[in-house]
């Protein structure tokens, strides 16, 4: 289950979607908005997604994790829109019979999500500047002729 939402995420509700009597290990990862980035104070933050492909790629990552680690169930919810410091941006929940698969799969899912799923983060800093994090500005300047 991979979802993109615009409202606050309820971690307990995400966890409840993977619970099962057969599972002795449940791992939840919460990614929260922190107040600094590379030494700069962050005031506000906004996420944006290309939802159509983000859902496809997110579901693909969960399926890959299932094949690699053999868990019982996994769920991931990412929030987009304006978020405050301390808000939950993403939750990953994984359940499995034993803890190893749950830990490893949870780690795999959040790591892959960060580099593959088309979601972007725009940070506003205390000095008034704004930046798309992870966005590298043009190395090559000017026209191509």
């Amino acid at each position, binding site marked *: 289950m991979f979802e993109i939402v615009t409202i606050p995420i309820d971690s307990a509700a995400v966890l409840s979607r993977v619970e099962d009597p057969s599972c002795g290990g449940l791992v939840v990862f919460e990614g929260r908005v922190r107040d600094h980035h590379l030494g700069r104070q962050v005031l506000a933050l906004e996420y944006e997604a290309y939802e159509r492909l983000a859902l496809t790629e997110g579901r693909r990552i969960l399926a890959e994790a299932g094949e690699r680690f053999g868990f019982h169930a996994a769920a991931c919810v990412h929030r987009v829109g304006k978020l405050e410091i301390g808000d939950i941006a993403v939750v990953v929940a994984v359940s499995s019979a034993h803890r190893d698969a749950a830990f490893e799969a949870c780690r795999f899912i959040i790591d892959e999500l960060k580099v593959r799923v088309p979601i972007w983060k725009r940070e506003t800093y205390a000095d008034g500047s704004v930046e*798309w994090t992870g966005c590298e500005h043009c190395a090559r300047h000017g026209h191509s002729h």
Partner: protein
Amino acid sequence: MSLNVLILVGGRSERMGRDKALIERPDGSRQIDHIVALARSVSDNVFLSAQDSNDRSTGLPVIPDLKPGTGPLGALASAASAHPGSWLVLSCDLFLLDPETLRFLLDQHDPEQGATAYRNRIDDRPEPLCAIYEESSISKAADFQKDNRCVRKFLESLKPKLLDLPHPAALDNANTPHELAEAFRKLKSGVHPKSVQLLYFAALREARGLSSETVETLACTAAGLYEELRFRHRLPLSIDHLRVAINGEFATWDAEVTSGDEFVFIPPVAGG
């Protein structure tokens, strides 16, 4: 006085990673031979401008730069000091240049103007590397390049006679392997306008000032489409920093552009 032709092979081709003059065209011929044949079809006085004085087995006389490293303007000044007259300058990387385009330039050539050139199909500025420069204009090149080495700005300063391209993509150049693949696709499958839907996100949405638009394009590949957009709107990200999605799924840069497709160019992501 007959027209001289100067074929420029002097560029370092850093982004292509190899000598563009020696690239093999889809029909198996060398690019330099394609340009030489076109040049010979309009003039008997054809020269190469090559910094390394290597004639690339063309048998043509080579005019070395008097001041190496001064680009096309320096090459033009060097040619003018070697031979009097007007000069048709041709870049060797015009993979799509065709006889009709060259013929039309010569037919429209007006020696009373400082130069005769084509408008770029996207930004309407003059194309400096398939253009005719009059002798009186070239004498200004040495002075001009003291302050500015941009050959396009030099051509603009000459107030050239400007022509619309009979074949719009004829002067599309190729500086990277992606652009070469685009040029070859155009050679093989022809140049046809297509209408595609674009969605913009994050840094590209802000740079473009739009979330979506429908555009007409001559591009055959995803990379060619992005290069058109980047040139037209001065977009800040190069292909090396992007991925591309077509109709909701990741695609490769050589993927074909088809009318009705939805394209998204994906800046570096930062979820989580």
